[in-house]
């Protein structure tokens, strides 16, 4: 394993630098081809999104993998290295593994835990695979990275909370109603904001949309958009109790709904809860209404508070996620070492078994006829000689594969015993 990663991201580089290094998708196969033919790169992939550009490679066992990848990025985009020096980061070996895991698990994203990045990494991997740039090492690494991302999603709640106003509203609605299927949403005031919120709620499963507006015609237009129902201007209070969710964004200077309206609604609804989202400024709904049992009122600031809390929650969850990444990096290291050591052990055994058989066959002719007992003694004598001789190096190889950090040591042992990859 000789992993190298060079790249930049929203954390190290401003957008005008990032866009200069962007690899457009159609050029990726060509870029990967260039990496393979011009540089000492065995396997590679390129991740290029609006927030990051990264080149990951398994290079030949030479120390200047980082330089090679830097050189590749600069010459491909025809940018002098000096202008990029401050923006590029590089990771090798274990650090590269950790970085890849963190990126896939969305721990390095601008919005912590956002889900798009995993899809982007998967696409980058498939593209590299189709270009024939992926071999055993990167394939194992990336599949593990996908697994880590999945573990982080299922074992932490890092990605489960909403970080936009519309999604926060949907999330709150689900905390009240659980399932939005069969629920009715009523829009008061046919503006852009309420249209957007209604769109998200419809997407989340709300069955019926009612629209009320100061001018009836506009209500009809918006209702058509959602295949909903427009409410006559004077009929608002005849229909309002049908709504499970009310989104209000009228231009009214005074409250349209007060506490008494809330009490009346809950009475008519036989205590079924109502979720009111007041995104109007000045507000449409008297905040006192939140004191009525089973009425839940959120204004625009409340929704922002929820988003802030969600972001803090993601930060907390990120700690558990980092712990998962730590475990997985250790595990991957163990696999990688075992992979490096096992073939060496097998080769060592096979090589000396072949030597033993050869030597035995040669000497056997000179020994003449022997009893079967004597044959067995010679057989076991030669075998135990080989075993005794190999005992130390093999147990050392096994020890190395479990503990020490230096992968060069395995290479040294291979060299001493004349083993080739």
């Amino acid at each position: 394993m000789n992993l190298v990663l060079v790249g930049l991201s929203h954390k190290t580089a401003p957008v005008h630098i990032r866009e200069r290094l962007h690899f457009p998708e159609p050029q990726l196969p060509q870029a990967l081809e260039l990496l393979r033919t011009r540089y000492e790169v065995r396997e590679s992939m390129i991740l290029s999104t609006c927030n990051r550009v990264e080149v990951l490679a398994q290079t030949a066992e030479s120390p200047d993998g980082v330089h090679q990848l830097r050189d590749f990025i600069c010459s491909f985009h025809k940018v002098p290295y000096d202008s990029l020096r401050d923006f590029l980061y590089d990771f090798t070996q274990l650090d590269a593994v950790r970085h890849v895991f963190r990126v896939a698990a969305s721990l390095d994203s601008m919005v912590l835990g956002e889900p798009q990045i995993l899809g982007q990494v998967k696409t980058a991997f498939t593209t590299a695979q189709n270009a024939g740039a992926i071999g055993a090492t990167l394939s194992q690494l990336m599949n593990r990275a996908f697994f880590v991302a999945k573990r982080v999603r299922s074992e932490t709640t890092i990605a489960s909370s909403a970080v936009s106003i519309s999604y926060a509203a949907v999330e709150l609605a689900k905390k009240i109603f659980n399932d939005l299927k069969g629920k009715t949403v009523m829009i008061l005031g046919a503006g852009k904001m309420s249209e957007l919120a209604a769109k998200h709620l419809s997407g989340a499963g709300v069955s019926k949309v009612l629209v009320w507006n100061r001018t009836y015609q506009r209500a009809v237009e918006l209702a058509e958009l959602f295949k909903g129902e427009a409410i006559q201007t004077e009929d608002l209070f005849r229909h309002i109790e049908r709504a499970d969710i009310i989104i209000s964004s009228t231009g009214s200077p005074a409250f349209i709904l007060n506490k008494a309206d809330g009490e009346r609604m809950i009475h008519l609804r036989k205590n079924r809860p109502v979720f009111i989202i007041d995104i109007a400024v000045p507000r449409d709904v008297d905040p006192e209404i939140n004191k009525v049992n089973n009425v839940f009122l959120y204004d625009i600031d409340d929704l922002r508070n929820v988003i802030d809390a969600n972001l803090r929650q993601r930060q907390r969850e990120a700690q558990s996620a980092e712990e998962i990444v730590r475990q997985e990096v250790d595990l991957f290291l163990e696999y990688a070492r075992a992979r490096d050591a096992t073939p060496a052990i097998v080769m060592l055994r096979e090589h000396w078994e072949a030597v033993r058989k050869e030597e035995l066959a040669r000497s056997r002719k000179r020994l003449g006829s022997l009893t079967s007992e004597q044959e067995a003694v010679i057989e076991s004598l030669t075998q135990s000689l080989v075993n005794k001789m190999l005992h130390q190096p093999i147990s050392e190889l096994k020890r190395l594969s479990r503990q020490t950090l230096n992968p060069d040591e395995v290479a040294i042992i291979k060299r001493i015993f004349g083993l080739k990859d």
Partner: protein
Amino acid sequence: MNTLFLRLTIALYSIGLLHSFLTIVTRKKTLFRVALAGIGLGFISHALSIIFAWIELDHPPITDNHGALSFFAFVIVLAFLVSYARYRLESLSVFVFPLVFILTLAANLISSPNAARHELLRSLWFYIHIPTTFLGYAAFFVAFSAGIMYLIQERELKRKRPQAFYYRLPSLEICDDLGYRSLSVGFPLLTVGIVAGALWASRSLTQPWGGDPKIIWSLITWLVYAVLIHYRLSAGLRGRRAAMMSILGFVIVLLTFLGTRHQGSAHSFIQQ
């Protein structure tokens, strides 16, 4: 054999206790799958312990404190597993796991007076009375837990400052639904239990038994739940008030179960 399995059960339930403790302290999802496996295996071991006790005693092992506590813990785990299968609510475990651990541990600490079996307790009505009442109580405990979860989640939503509970607890709808369903299972069971108890008493007891404090409290419990169910069905009582009544109901259940264990009442047979 039954004590052996009961001890194994306690060991397995202790994983659940650990889970609840860690979940409350760290406010994070900890060890849930392990704990669920522990509770599941513990349930099997618990069942074996009860079966062996039954074989050893030659009658259902619910006629003494030891057996009754153990059996009560067993039906609570049963109620939890049934509601988990339906709702997948991990939060419920925080209420259930410590309680079953404590009940099972208490059962194990009370020595089992195997020989002291009262002739009066050898009645079919008695063997119906105990399991139905206990199953009813277990269902009420689930309703109680759902009620508490409802109140906490409702407070989070009303205060508009989401904290750990907001993320961990289920939606109001689910809490309310779980509470309602538990009541609609628990209430008929309690009714059957009370009727069976009355039939048993009228056939077996010679002294007057109507003034027994446990019986009076049971009737109060029954009335509270009857009122709650009536208003749920007729007036759509739900949400906060229904949750508070479920909690109140279970507090009365606890008073009935624990507070009326003194001598000289029909129910003191169990102690003698």
